[in-house]
């Protein structure tokens, strides 16, 4: 999370946002809100957190994994992957974000 917070601060003035989507199949909605609020406060997260606990189920992603999805300015999906395999295979995330910001 500190890494995402740093990315967010670095690029947010240029039209970049990070959306955190926590997934938890076991907790109720209130429990989830409680848990994520505490987490965000502890880690100093300032980017928005969206309540879509069914996100992984809807798109058939592994429910226990952590995924990154990068969308361009036109709202279209540019990149999807596991947080670490993505970093290894397509260069640093900063580079991908720079590219996405540069294209219209």
């Amino acid at each position, binding site marked *: 999370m500190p890494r*995402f917070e740093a*990315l967010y601060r670095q690029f947010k003035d240029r*039209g*970049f*946002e*990070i*959306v*955190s*989507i*926590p*997934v*938890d*199949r076991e*907790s109720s909605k209130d429990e*989830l809100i409680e*848990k*994520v*609020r505490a*987490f*965000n406060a502890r880690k100093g997260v300032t980017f*928005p*957190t*969206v*309540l879509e606990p069914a*996100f*992984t189920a*809807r*798109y*058939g*992603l*592994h*429910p*226990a*994994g*952590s*995924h*990154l*999805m*990068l*969308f*361009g*300015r*036109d*709202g*279209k*999906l540019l990149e*999807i*992957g*596991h*947080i*670490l*395999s*993505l*970093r*290894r*295979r*397509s260069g640093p995330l900063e580079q991908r*974000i720079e590219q*996405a*910001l540069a294209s219209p």
Partner: protein
Amino acid sequence: MNRILLSLWSGAFWIGAPQGVLSEADRAWESLARTPSSPRAYSPKSMIEFYEAKERGERGYRDQGYRFWKAYPDDPRRYQWLLATVAYRAPFYWGGDPHLAAKAYFERIARGEETPIAYDRDAIRRWEAIYPALRQTYLSSEAVSEKQKMYLLHGEIRSLFERMYHAPGREPGGMASVLKVLRLLDEYTDRYLLDLDREEDFRTEDLYYKYVGWFCTYRHAWNLSFEDLRFIAEHLSKRSAPIARARGQKMLELLALRETPFSQTWTTIDGGEMTPESRKGKVALYYIWNCG
């Protein structure tokens, strides 16, 4: 005792040896059963030593078992060995904290270092050359129950997925492995998935719910392009089994985001709203994480 340890280690199911005097086959089987039976027996000093020892142990077990297979064609215990050989093997779930082990492993990959699993490509090639015939004998044998055959097919898919998962980028030809997985999934689905009378502890649908999702998640590690993903999704969505169709459909929905942006309005944790308009014109990184 050795037999009990062996059956525990393999996670498979002891067929049961015929009672009586110790035959030559019995003695051969005893020596096979004396191979290292627990990962803890290796007493690893570090992860690297652990994986190397594990790989050596597995290879030894495989070779010895193959000798048994060749020498005693009428002994039903050879099926036990075959099943144990392809059975589910997940290094990270053997003791310790699996998440920490997996994290350390992926961090090594991220740094571009060699990963600790010792891969002997020649050994794998040799094994792949003899395996199809073994498998055929197993699947057509009357000495093996349908349930045991189901476990073999299930184990094959799982071990293939595990191998792809734990050795990202080191599996030759990502799409070739994926095609192999798809073919096995089809075979398995046609044979068993339509039978709804399943054991409770045997989560057949996990193969679809859990593993198929990995295609998208680990596409970089396996060098899969979006076209490859589309091919997989379309293949699955054309299958007759509802579960396969549903998974294919979900993947297609995900890939449709390449063309059509999200149109939903989302609520944020602070009670605010995130509308399609508010997201317009922005580059967005969605971080989906499990907080359970």
